[in-house]
């Protein structure tokens, strides 16, 4: 008795589950829907003469806490908010996941912040929450790693995608001695920035003047020191003729340089890419990484803070062509799709590295 009932009841329960799920009918396939619409948002026109408001509550939500690079970025934001007499706040997950970022965005909405600055872990996953924030009157500035463009008011980009891609190819060419096999050690495979730069690198490599360089593999270290370390090992084993590793992420470049410094590949394989002077100083001096590039991360946070307060004050709305002044960095003009570009990256080598401390 009980046994027949038992399985039957489970089947019924499963069927009930299915029934609840199968609410809609018809056929919704990819492309038959254009995705979430952006909220009306900036209805008011920008007033370039509006004064910058004081006491703006601005929260920074980096990709994750405990990341030296993000620490420097948000540090710049804190400094700018001090100049602007705003309230600075820092929240963030420990695990660089998009779902934890969503929970934090929800919390910030509840806390009625004025501006949220976010470096998105997944451009789309944070989108619905950011739009809820904007619907609640909060201005959203993405920095460093953009969210989908319909979910934020402005995006502070460290440099143009083309600029970084070309700089990486130049660095790689020099590191490999003009020609030979190179490999890329990236962050996560769906990191927005890195993928855009890698695309530019690939199209640059297709040009005849770079024909001597051959990209053999793109490996992913997930911006995790240990994983990047192990991926470097794998690259060196798989490609005996490798001349250079290009890592367009600060975690990856430091891990690759450290592994090569401590192995017998030192002197045979060069490292270059994007890194912070403090983490790379040792490897520049021992020759593992003769040159690498980066913008000043603190300036990104600084610019994001000024952009956020300008948005809140109504000086700008995120439309192309609007201008605002970002403290010590000077005047910026908003480009297409609400993009604000910080400027060209700085190249570091043994001659200038000691002038920088970040």
């Amino acid at each position, binding site marked *: 008795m009980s046994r027949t009932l038992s399985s039957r009841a489970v089947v019924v329960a499963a069927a009930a589950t299915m029934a609840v799920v199968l609410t809609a009918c018809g056929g919704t396939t990819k492309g038959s829907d254009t995705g979430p619409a952006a909220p009306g948002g900036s209805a008011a026109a920008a007033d370039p003469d509006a004064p910058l408001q004081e006491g703006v509550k601005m929260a920074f939500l980096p990709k994750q*806490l*405990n990341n*030296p690079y993000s620490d420097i970025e948000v540090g710049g934001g804190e400094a700018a908010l001090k100049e602007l007499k705003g309230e600075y706040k820092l929240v963030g997950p420990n695990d660089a996941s998009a779902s934890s970022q969503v929970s934090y965005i929800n919390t910030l909405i509840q806390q009625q912040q004025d501006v949220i600055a976010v470096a998105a872990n997944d451009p789309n996953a944070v989108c619905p929450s950011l739009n809820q924030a904007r619907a609640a009157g909060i201005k959203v500035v993405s920095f460093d790693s953009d969210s989908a463009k319909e979910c934020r008011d402005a995006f502070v980009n460290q440099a143009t995608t083309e600029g970084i891609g070309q700089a990486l190819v130049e660095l790689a060419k020099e590191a490999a001695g003009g020609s030979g096999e190179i490999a890329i050690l990236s962050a996560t495979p769906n990191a927005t920035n890195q993928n855009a730069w890698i695309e530019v690198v690939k199209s640059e490599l297709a040009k005849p003047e770079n024909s001597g360089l051959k990209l053999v593999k793109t490996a992913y270290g997930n911006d995790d020191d240990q994983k990047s370390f192990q991926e470097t090992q*794998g690259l060196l084993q798989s490609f*005996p003729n490798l001349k250079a590793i290009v890592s367009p992420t600060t975690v990856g470049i430091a*891990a690759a340089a450290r592994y090569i410094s401590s192995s017998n590949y030192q002197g045979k394989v060069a490292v270059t890419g994007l890194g912070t002077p*403090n983490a790379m100083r040792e490897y520049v001096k021992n020759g593992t990484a003769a040159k690498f590039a980066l913008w000043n991360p603190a300036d990104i946070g600084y610019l994001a803070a000024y952009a956020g307060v300008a948005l809140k004050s109504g000086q700008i709305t995120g439309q192309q062509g609007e201008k605002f002044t970002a403290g010590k960095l000077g005047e910026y003009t908003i480009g297409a799709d609400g993009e604000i570009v910080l400027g060209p990256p700085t190249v570091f080598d043994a001659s200038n590295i000691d002038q920088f401390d970040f």
Partner: protein
Amino acid sequence: MSALKAPPAAAWWSSVVRAREAGIVLALVALVAYTAVSNPRFLSGQSVRDILLGTSILAVLAVGQAVVVITRNIDLSVGSVLGLSAFTVGSVVQDNPGLPVVVALLAGVGIGVVCGTLNALLVRYGQVPALVVTLGTLYAFRGVTYLTAGGQQITADELPRAFLGFADASVLGVPWLVVIAVAVTVAVGVLLRNYRLGRELYAMGSSPEAAALVGIKVGRNTLVAFAISGAAAGLAGVLFAVRFGTIDAAAGTGYELNVVAAAVVGGVAVFGGSGTVWGAALGALLLTVIGSSLTVLDIDQFWQQAIVGALILLAIAIDRLVALRTARALRKGGPHVQ
């Protein structure tokens, strides 16, 4: 005696059980041979060294885990203990660059013993199942690490040369990390095999009630088992710090799965009473070699986790099969088996 008879089925099967480790060795040899044929650099000195260094940390953890699992318990907090130890020792070394490496290692062991003892006290005197306790301390120890770290990261350039140099240093060509891992395995292996305490741990795992009835000090032994696992995790934390040089509060997150996998693949039965630390250490080596050959064979890294999962299922299924056959053979053969 002189008659040449086929060995009784039971003896044959129990020798298979004993040869459990041989199976892993076989799998290892096959894997290494296959990988080396397709890419000879897999056997280069640098590559072998990297594999051994990678194994040493996992092996130390797996050996500690084996001891706990043998007593029919489990320690899921090892990844968090590793993180706590790595970060604490890392910051102490950062502030005291002159500290000898031995002291750092001992400090790590000490932190681990404290954590392990806390686990054991809750298991034994709180009567809380080990799964629950160590799941709880998995969260709690990690939380403590995040609190003390407060978002900082210790990077390689902030650690003294002598400390990081330990990762590259070697005795007679064998890196120190590997020497330590082997020493830990041998010491615990001998303890389990040749000492009364070791045999008691197996007895507790086979039947906790019977063990208590024959007068085994179950409480004390539980304490020892968890202390060993904690000590191993603490030691592994220092080895982690030495090897990777960059430590944040997330060090070792998710390690517990690999550690349990290494022990189980190495033939340590999840429900206690059987398995050896040699097997656990070999399991750790196998998992590391798999990861490494996937990279070398240029197979998608994404397969690695799936393969580890399939291996766990395979290992427990084989162990179950062997146990069943042995039991059946024993019943049939009965007293004839010497």
